[in-house]
C-alpha cells in the first residue's frame, strides 16, 4: 500500500516537472547553454540551444540569433562542419552584425563562420543608440553592414508616402557608416515624424541581392524654445483724446476768465475805482484759449506724444519677438537629430 502511494506521488511530481521544465524562460536556457558550451559540454549545450531556437520557443529574435551562433560554434568544435556553417548562416540571416570575437572563439570556429559569411549575402542596418547629431554636419546615426562587398542603395520615405525624401548609394563591405547627412534632397531638415528606410544591397561578385526595411522616428533635441510675446494692447496709451475732455478744458479757460473778471471787484479796493481793462483783456484771452482748446479737442485730435510712445512700444515688441525668433532659429539650427527605430532593429 505504501509502495503504491509512493509511486503515485512520484508520477505526479514527474508529470508536473516536465511542463515546468518546458516553461523555463528562453533567456535562462540560453544562458545555461552558453555556460555549457564554454565548459565544453557541447552535447548538453546543443540540446539546450536547440530548445531556444525551436519554433515553439518564446525566445526573441536576438536570443534565437545568439543561440544559433553558439550552435554553429558548438558544431564546429564537434567537427560537424556543415551543421556549423548552416547555423552560422542562419545566424547571419537573422543578424548580419554578428561576428565571432577572437578572444572567445577558436580559429576553427571563425574559419567556418567566414565561410558562412561568404555563402550568405545579407544587408543589415542598425540605429546607434545615444548618437544624436546635427543634420548637415555629419552622418546619420545609422550603421549598415553587408556580409560581402556590395552596392547599397538606401531610400528614405515619409511613412505612408511613396515619394523619396532622400536617396543615397555607396559601396560597402562589412560594416559601414551611412553617407546620409540627415538632410532631404533639398538640403533641408526632415520634419519630425515617422519614416521608413528601404535598403537594397547587391553583391558585386555574384549579383546576389538583399533588401530590408527600417521604420524609424525622427526627433530633434534642442534647447527649449522661447514663446513669442503677445502684444498687450492695454499697454498702449490713448492716441486720441476723448471728446469729453474738451468740455473740461473749456471750463478751465472760462474759470480763469471769470477769476480775472472777479479780481478787480473781489481784490481791488472799490474806493479807488481801479481799472478793469487789464482784467477784461486777461479774461478775453483766457476765455478765447478755453474756446479754442474746446474746438480743437472736440474734433478728437490725436496725442502726438502718445502716438510716438505707442509706436516705440510696438517697435520694441516687434524687436523682442524678432530676437526671440532669431534665438529659436539658432537653437533649431543647432538641434540634434535623433533616430529611433520604431520596431526594434531591423535587418
Amino acid at each position, binding site marked *: 500500500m505504501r509502495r503504491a502511494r509512493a509511486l503515485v506521488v512520484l508520477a505526479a511530481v514527474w508529470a508536473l516537472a516536465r511542463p515546468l521544465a518546458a516553461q523555463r524562460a528562453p533567456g535562462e536556457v540560453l544562458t545555461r547553454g552558453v555556460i555549457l558550451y564554454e565548459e565544453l559540454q557541447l552535447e548538453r549545450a546543443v540540446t539546450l540551444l536547440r530548445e531556444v531556437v525551436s519554433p515553439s520557443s518564446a525566445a526573441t529574435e536576438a536570443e534565437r540569433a545568439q543561440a544559433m551562433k553558439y550552435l554553429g560554434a558548438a558544431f564546429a568544435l564537434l567537427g560537424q562542419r556543415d551543421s556549423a556553417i548552416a547555423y552560422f548562416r542562419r545566424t547571419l540571416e537573422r543578424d548580419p552584425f554578428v561576428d565571432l570575437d577572437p578572444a572567445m572563439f577558436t580559429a576553427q570556429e571563425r574559419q567556418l563562420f567566414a565561410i558562412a559569411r561568404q555563402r550568405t549575402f545579407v544587408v543589415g542596418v542598425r540605429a546607434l543608440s545615444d548618437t544624436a547629431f546635427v543634420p548637415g554636419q555629419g552622418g546619420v546615426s545609422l550603421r549598415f553592414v553587408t556580409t560581402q562587398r556590395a552596392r547599397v542603395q538606401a531610400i528614405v520615405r515619409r511613412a505612408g508616402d511613396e515619394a523619396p525624401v532622400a536617396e543615397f548609394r555607396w559601396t560597402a563591405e562589412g560594416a559601414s557608416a551611412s553617407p546620409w547627412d540627415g538632410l532631404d534632397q533639398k538640403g533641408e531638415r526632415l520634419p519630425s515624424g515617422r519614416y521608413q528606410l528601404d535598403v537594397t544591397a547587391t553583391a558585386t561578385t555574384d549579383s546576389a541581392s538583399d533588401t530590408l526595411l527600417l521604420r524609424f522616428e525622427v526627433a530633434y533635441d534642442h534647447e527649449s524654445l522661447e514663446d513669442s510675446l503677445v502684444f498687450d494692447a492695454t499697454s498702449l496709451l490713448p492716441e486720441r483724446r476723448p471728446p469729453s475732455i474738451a468740455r473740461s478744458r473749456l471750463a478751465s479757460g472760462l474759470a480763469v476768465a471769470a477769476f480775472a473778471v472777479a479780481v478787480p471787484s473781489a481784490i481791488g479796493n472799490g474806493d*479807488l475805482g*481801479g481799472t478793469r481793462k487789464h482784467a477784461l483783456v486777461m479774461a478775453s484771452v483766457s476765455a478765447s484759449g478755453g474756446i479754442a482748446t474746446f474746438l480743437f479737442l472736440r474734433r478728437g485730435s490725436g496725442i502726438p506724444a502718445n502716438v510716438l510712445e505707442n509706436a516705440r512700444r510696438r517697435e520694441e515688441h516687434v524687436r523682442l519677438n524678432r530676437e526671440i525668433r532669431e534665438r529659436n532659429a539658432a537653437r533649431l539650427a543647432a538641434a540634434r537629430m535623433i533616430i529611433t527605430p520604431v520596431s526594434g532593429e531591423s535587418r
Partner: protein
Amino acid sequence: MTVRRLGWLAASLMCVAPLRAQLPVTTGVSMSLAEHRVTAGAGLERSSGTMFGLSATTVVPWQALEARASLRAGSLGAHEQSAFDRDVGEVSLVMSLPVSGWIALEGGVVVRRYESSLAAQRWVWGEVGLQGRHVMLDDALRVSAGISIMPWVSVSGVSRPDLAVAAHSALGYSAGRLTATIRYGLERFDFPARNQVRRLEELSSLELGVAWKIR
C-alpha cells in the same frame, strides 16, 4: 566781516556751479501795462505807463521747486495835473512749490522803488500764496490763477498796511523752446488811517512776455 562775506560767496558759488550745468534755465523779456492808483487824503492820484522787464526761471531738482527772478522798470505818467510822474523799478524773487498737479504754493520777496521829482519811496514785502494751474493742451497751453497775501510789508515813510493782498491770472502758450505769456496782476495795499486819513494803493498790470528755454 569782508572775509566772512567772501567765504559765503565762495561757498555759494561752489554749490551753484555744479547745478548750473544741470538746471533748466528759461529767460524772458516782458512788457507791462501798469496802472497805479493811490489816495492819501489829497484825492485820487492815477498814473499809468509801461514797464519793461527781464526774467530768469529755473527748476530745482528738489521737489520740482521753480524759482523765478525778475526785474521790471518803467515810468508811470500822472493822469492828474496835481500829481507827479514817477519811475518804478522792481526786483522780485518768487519760488513756486507744486503740491499737486493743480496746486502750487508760492512765496517770494519783492523790492520796489517809486521815484518822482518830489520824493522816492522803497517798498519791500514778502508774499505767500496759492496758485492753481491747469494744462489745457498738452504742454502747449497752460492757464493759472492765484491769490497771495503779503504778511510782511515795509514801506519807507509809511506804517505797515493792515491789508496787503494780490491776485493774478496767466495764460502761456509754448511752441518748442519759446513760450509767450500774458499775465494779469492786481496788488492792493490798505494802510491804517493816520490823522483820519487812510492811504490806499493799488497797482494793476497786464504783462506780455516772451521766454526762451535755454536748456
